[in-house]
């Protein structure tokens, strides 16, 4: 399969590989996909008090396109507010990486990973503020 230059670049020099402590309240973790389908992405975002994503990390089990898609979104979400990050569409990812039709699912998974990470962060904030009120 012929990969685009951008996919190869992200595959060979993946950005932001790694993990944050998922127990931290300012971290949102999204784990999407399934081993049986051949793709699993873990995307983590670190969010500051202003609701801006100041850092992101990923780990991916999958083909070159899956690795490139997740690497790319770690770059894209940085500096964005949660609302802005939630607006990233798989079509933009697929277009940027010139993914062939059979690899579109990789970009869909990356979009799902962002949403899952944001959701996780918001759920944590909600439960933290709830706990806070009880304590107060």
């Amino acid at each position, binding site marked *: *399969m012929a990969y685009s230059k951008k996919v190869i670049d992200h595959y060979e020099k993946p950005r932001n590989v790694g*993990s944050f402590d998922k127990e931290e309240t300012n971290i949102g973790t999204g784990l999407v996909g*399934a*081993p049986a389908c*051949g793709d699993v992405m873990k995307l983590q975002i670190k969010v500051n008090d202003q609701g801006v994503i100041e850092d992101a990390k990923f780990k*991916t089990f999958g083909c*070159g396109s899956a690795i490139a898609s997740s690497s790319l979104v770690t770059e894209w979400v940085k500096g964005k507010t949660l609302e802005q990050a939630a607006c990233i569409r798989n079509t933009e990812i697929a277009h940027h990486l010139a993914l062939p039709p*059979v690899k579109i699912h990789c970009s869909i998974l990356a979009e799902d990973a962002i949403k899952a990470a944001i959701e996780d962060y918001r759920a944590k904030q909600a439960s933290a503020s709830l706990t806070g009120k009880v304590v107060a």
Partner: protein
Amino acid sequence: MVRSMFPNLHASVLMPAEQIYLDYQATTPCDPRVLEKMLPYFSGIFGNPHSRNHPHGWMADVIKADEREIIFTSGATESNNMAIKGVAYFYQNQKKHIITCVTEHKCVLDSCRRLEQQGFQMTYLPVQANGLIDLQTLRDAITDSTLLVSIMAVNNEIGVIQPLYEIGKICREKGVFFHTDAAQAVGKIALDVNEMNIDLLSISGHKVYGPKGIGALFVRRKPRVRMNALTSGGGQERGMRSGTLPTPLCVGLGEACALAFQEMATESERIYKLNQRLYNGLTQRLSHVYLNGDAVHRIPGNLNLSFAYVEGEGLMMGIKDLSVSSGSACTSSSLEPSYVLRALGVEEELAHTSIRFGIGRFTTKEEIDIAIDKVVGAVERLREMSPLWEMAQEGIDLKSIQWAAH
């Protein structure tokens, strides 16, 4: 021997420089000695191969058949189609049940599906975890209406050798024809159509260092196997396969079989050592590497391994200087991993991590050592990047997670 005659062989015959070819079950390069034999037939000698007995005879030797039992075809795909459909159509008024196996090559399975649509009954035998069929299951599947058993000699993905002698014995005892797709077996294991009671046997040219576009089918004369021809025409090849044969290709296949036969013993030993060198080199440096298919009943040239927590296609991209195949079907629209590995009961997640290494005539020890380094490097890098590897290291049971299938 061939390497001393052609010192630059692997560089010149195979692909771009620096590329290491380890995909000998996919196809093999034409041996220069075969090409040399073929060349005169493209120009000077333009005789008709139907009137020359040589290539038929060389072919026959490798499977211990009679030269009159060999029919040239365009390849193993055509041979398999001919054997299964040709026999089915001829005997359809007497018997309409055919037995094959779930790990057969697509051309066998698709021929069977076609017959099924036309009213034949099929039994697709399962395989055991080692990739071999169970003989009792075969015996139990045979009924009074069973016409043909078609079981491959050597599997193309996992290299396992089916118990041909035992299958042949059961078939002969029950009065059922036995066809075997031997595309991956010729020149790799000893074949004897009489001892093994094989009635039909398919051969491929490009899997035995011969040219592409040529193959053969052995059709037993005593007791005679009859079949309907799938092509109509001048009645060449005993009326079973009309059409003028490509003389240079027939000569090439004959020579390729002769060479494979002569060198089988020494080559098997050499290739087995390379196989063990590769297996040991990888498993000593990497944990969680699993062999797919029986460890003993397999051809020396095949090593099919699952590298847990690393997806196969992603791994292939990391070892792009090595030509190998993956059981992961990430490129296919179905996203289904190899049906062969699934039939063995290999879990889908492990099937996605499999790589097939094919070692062959032109593989060197140096190439194996380079391959080990490259694979180890890529697997280590990708495991560091794999969320599954991270979870496994943390002691999380991946099966305890509710994965959302997509």
